């Protein structure tokens, strides 16, 4: 069993029957250290598996990941638990064999054990990994587990973070109204409108349509506010803000920052002379077209 460790050495030890032989195993540590390291590995990997399963079971992933990623985390956790159980059982068997080998007994012609010492790993050349520095690694690995035990993360991004991501929007003031098109209000998502804002043909197609948008509230002026949505594609770290500006012909009720609001009005696109960007704007003429709604 020639394990390829940089720190390999052979060691000999005497057996009760009076012979000695080499175990070409490459560990610079005794069996107790070997077992300790492997127990730590089983403990950490098992803990990651348990935390992954618990996070799924208690909906702790909601703030971190989109729903489609919840099942992969669960499957990853179960896989870790499975391999941890297999490794645990194998280690237990190795420990049993080692204990049996250490017991003094007389060897005779009927004694058919083959001195398969614990370090043989069932015929497995476990080259390609080392056991050094496992203790500092355990400290690093314990960090996310500790966060879970502390119940973190327990809320979304802070108000400062969201405001910074939204940037500075300015009130538009008086707008040149576009001709409203016929038809009922259509529910649009921010993505569609944000994409359309940058393409002339799509702007022309959508301008004047009555739309309904749902998003979070950020006040700009007496008659204006920004409606925004923090869109998560996979995880919270990839969130991007999508925005539309709402201009009312009256002074609407002032909601709190990040309250969820549903707005229905006429869509138009207004060019910002400084950035040359087109901003989606929804013009609202009835108080009942701005109403609080449930978080999405």
């Amino acid at each position, binding site marked *: 069993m020639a394990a390829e460790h940089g720190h390999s050495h052979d060691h000999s030890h005497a057996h009760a029957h009076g012979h000695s032989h080499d175990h070409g195993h490459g560990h610079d540590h005794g069996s107790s250290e070997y077992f300790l390291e492997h127990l730590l590995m089983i403990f950490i990997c098992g803990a990651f598996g348990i935390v992954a399963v618990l996070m799924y079971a208690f909906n702790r992933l909601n703030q971190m990941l989109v729903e489609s990623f919840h099942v992969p985390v669960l499957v990853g956790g179960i896989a870790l638990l499975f391999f941890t159980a297999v490794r645990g059982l194998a280690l237990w068997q190795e420990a049993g064999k080692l204990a049996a080998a250490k017991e003094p007994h007389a060897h005779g012609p009927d004694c058919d054990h083959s001195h398969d010492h614990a370090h043989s790993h069932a015929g497995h050349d476990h080259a390609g990994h080392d056991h050094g520095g496992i203790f500092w690694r355990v400290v690093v690995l314990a960090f*996310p587990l500790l966060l879970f035990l502390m119940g973190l993360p327990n809320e979304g991004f*802070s108000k400062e973070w969201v405001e910074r991501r939204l940037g500075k929007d300015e009130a538009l003031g008086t707008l040149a109204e576009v001709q409203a098109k016929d038809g009922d209000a259509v529910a649009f998502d921010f993505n569609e409108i944000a994409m359309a804002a940058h393409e002339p043909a*799509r702007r022309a197609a959508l301008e004047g349509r009555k739309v309904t948008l749902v998003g979070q509230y950020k006040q700009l002026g007496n008659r204006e506010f920004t409606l925004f949505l923090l869109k998560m594609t996979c995880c919270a770290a990839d969130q991007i803000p999508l925005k539309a500006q709402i201009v009312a012909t009256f002074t609407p009720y002032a909601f709190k920052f990040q309250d969820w609001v549903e707005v229905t009005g006429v869509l138009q696109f207004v060019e910002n002379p400084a950035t040359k960007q087109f901003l989606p704007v929804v013009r609202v003429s009835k108080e009942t077209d701005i109403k609080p709604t449930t978080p999405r």
Partner: protein
Amino acid sequence: MNPLHTAQDFVLNFSSILWEALPFIVLGAVVAGILEELLPQQLITRVLPKSALPAVMIGGALGLIFPMCECGIVVVMRRLLRKGLPLGCCIAYMLAGPILNVVVLFSTYIAFGGLGDPNSEAQTAALRRAAVEMVLLRAGFGFIVAVVTGLIVHRLQQTRGTHALLTEVAAPPKKTALSLDVVEAEPPAPPKSVWQRLQNISETALHDFMDITVFLIIGAALAAAAKIAIAPEEIATFSREQPYLAIPAMMLLAVIMCLCSEADAFVAASFTQVSTSSKLAFLVLGPMLDLKLLMMYTRVFRPRLIATIVACTVTQVFAYMMLLNLVLERAASAATAIPAP
């Protein structure tokens, strides 16, 4: 800024990066365990062409039949190295694999409007054409950058030797005259039981999981800290205001954001005012190089090789994207110069 709020944002950023990557690290570790146990040593070497260029090109395209994301691929690549896959091939696979795979290419297609506009057939056709162009450009540049880097690493390996570039846990086993004799003299190993194989796979998988997750955690913490310091919108605004610096700014953003290659296209598409070449710089460099990957590379590569990979990928992405920018600008000005009939 309130320190408590900063800590809250750090924890959310850190946790989301870590737990998103976790299933892919587990998958990579299990695949690594299976490769270690079942793939015969040097089999890949016998199958691959002997010449460097076709071998590295095969490595670059391997992601199409063996898809892995950038987190899982580091673990798998380490085992492939130990099984004798040439270093240049491994580098090409590691760099191109997270771009040249079906899931990532499809998500790029969707992010750049591949689903079309339900209100307009003409718009749908234009959007789909633009989405296909983006997919082809991303895949093409990703492949070229990976293959060129793979060839440079192959050359470096010839001059410096494998063990000067790889850490002990990644380098293929050293062979001595004595060990070869022993191997030749040894009778074939007895067949292993399923339980023995499962034990070995589980040991390798858990070791690799622990090994790489440590560096993933450090990388995720660095990325979360960087995201607190720099908001993506600030870089996007800077890119708009300083168009000549847009490409390096978007490359920096890719390194900081540590996005999964399946999600990054949606983020790139959201930077609507940034040029196509800048978005491509973000999409090509991101899956090859970010803070968490840099930390994970330290477990496999020695500093000289990491520096080579960083220098090659950054220089190439920058040069190709500047060139593309020039071509696209000329094409746009030529189109506007043609008088309307």
